[in-house]
């Protein structure tokens, strides 16, 4: 327990984080590429077509993991934002805002693939259904975080203001998660659960592989963006100068 705490404390130091993140990144990328290749190949080529949805069910191997990521990333940002506001550590501030563009991209992918899937299956690209609307709101929240962060010049102030907004936006997560249960509109409830999933293993497994691959991709992108932002905010510090000199030499 003691060892863990000191390890976390040490990670809050920018140079240590920079080094550790740099060491983790290749593994995350390798796992993401491997998982993505397996999951996409399996889902798009080998998994069976659905007897109701036909071949269009394959869109869901991208749609569902992206939708999970759109929520997971906000939760991850909120965790970092809380740490940033309570302990005021630079690494947490950078982590909180660095994930926003990745989250916005996953949310946009969710909405786009959902529209493409909805056209053949529901007969429409878009309906004003509770889950669709709350996912759209999530996209606007992501854009709001990015916009607020860019509008404030001082990087630390910008990160702290964005952190407050991230924590406020947390309200939207349960609304999206439970929207299909509270309001029974068009979008179907979840069929993948921790216990007793209602989809066949031949479709479940590629989906889970894709879910893992998107998580590792996010980790890679998150760490990469955080490292660059950390370099920018710490550019006047000794460790950055030494790093740059080492890179030049």
């Amino acid at each position, binding site marked *: 327990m003691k060892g863990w705490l000191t390890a976390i404390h040490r990670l809050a130091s920018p140079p240590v984080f920079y080094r550790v993140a740099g060491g983790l990144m290749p593994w995350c990328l390798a796992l993401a590429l491997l998982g993505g290749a397996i999951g996409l190949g399996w889902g798009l080529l080998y998994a069976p077509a659905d007897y109701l949805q036909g071949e269009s069910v394959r869109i869901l191997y991208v749609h569902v993991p992206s939708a999970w990521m759109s929520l997971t990333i906000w939760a991850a940002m909120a965790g970092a934002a809380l740490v940033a*506001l309570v302990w005021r550590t630079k690494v947490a501030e950078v982590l909180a805002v660095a994930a926003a563009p990745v989250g916005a991209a996953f949310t946009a992918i969710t909405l786009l693939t959902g529209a493409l899937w909805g056209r053949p299956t529901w007969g429409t690209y878009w309906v004003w259904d509770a889950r669709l*609307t709350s996912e759209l*709101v999530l996209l*606007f*929240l992501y*854009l*709001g975080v990015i*916009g*607020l962060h860019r*509008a*404030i010049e001082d990087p630390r*102030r910008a990160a*702290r*203001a964005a*952190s*407050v*907004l991230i*924590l*406020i*936006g947390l*309200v*939207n997560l349960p*609304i999206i998660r439970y929207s299909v249960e509270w309001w029974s509109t068009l979008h179907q409830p979840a069929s993948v659960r921790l216990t007793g999933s209602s989809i066949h293993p031949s479709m479940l497994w590629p989906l889970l592989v894709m879910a893992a691959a998107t998580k590792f991709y996010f980790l890679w992108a998150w760490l990469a963006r955080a490292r660059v932002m950390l370099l920018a905010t710490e550019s006047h510090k000794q460790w950055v100068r030494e790093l740059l000199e080492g890179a030049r030499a």
Partner: protein
Amino acid sequence: MRPGRAFLAALGRELGIAWRRRGELLQPLLFAALICAMLPLALGPEAARLRPMAGGMAWIAALLAGLLGLEALFRRDAEEGVLDQLLLAAVPLPLLFAAKLLAHWLAFGLPLALLAPLLALWLGLPPAALPTLLAGLLLGTPLLSAIGGVAAALTVGIRGSGILLVLLVAPLYLPVLIFGAGAVEASLSGLPARQPLMFLAAALPAAAVFAPWAGAKALRAVAT
């Protein structure tokens, strides 16, 4: 100074300033009326078409008009150095922030909440749905003030923050709109409107607790 007296002093100051600029207080009301006047021009003046939309339209008018006063909420305080004094004051900042929110609601939210039902009647809302609309607005506009106030605190000191503020606030306004307009919709179709109103009534004390705290956090995050 005791916290209670500081709260009242801050509230009195805000209301005094609002009263001295009472011309500005009319602008959101005129804007809301204009939005409602545009609706028949855009959709056609048939009463049968306007009637089912009247309640929702009054909500949208109140919501959009409420955005007008937000940008100015902290601008003058920031320019004149009042904000720095508030941050340094020996009184808890959330308390002063709560006074600010209450004053903003009294000056902007309450007039809109009282005007919007009249606008809805003007568009042909059946009078039977009027109490539901008014109750929803009276419960919902303080929530709008609370959300808007926190967002305004986040954008203090950003030049030309108007559009950004709208982008931040609008997604967070949607739940209020859903329940407020949903209550009118329910009462129009003869269903009980209690449930959506209860949601608003439950959100109000939660906002009263969290908004001053979040707003104070936001001011400190941006200002220090």
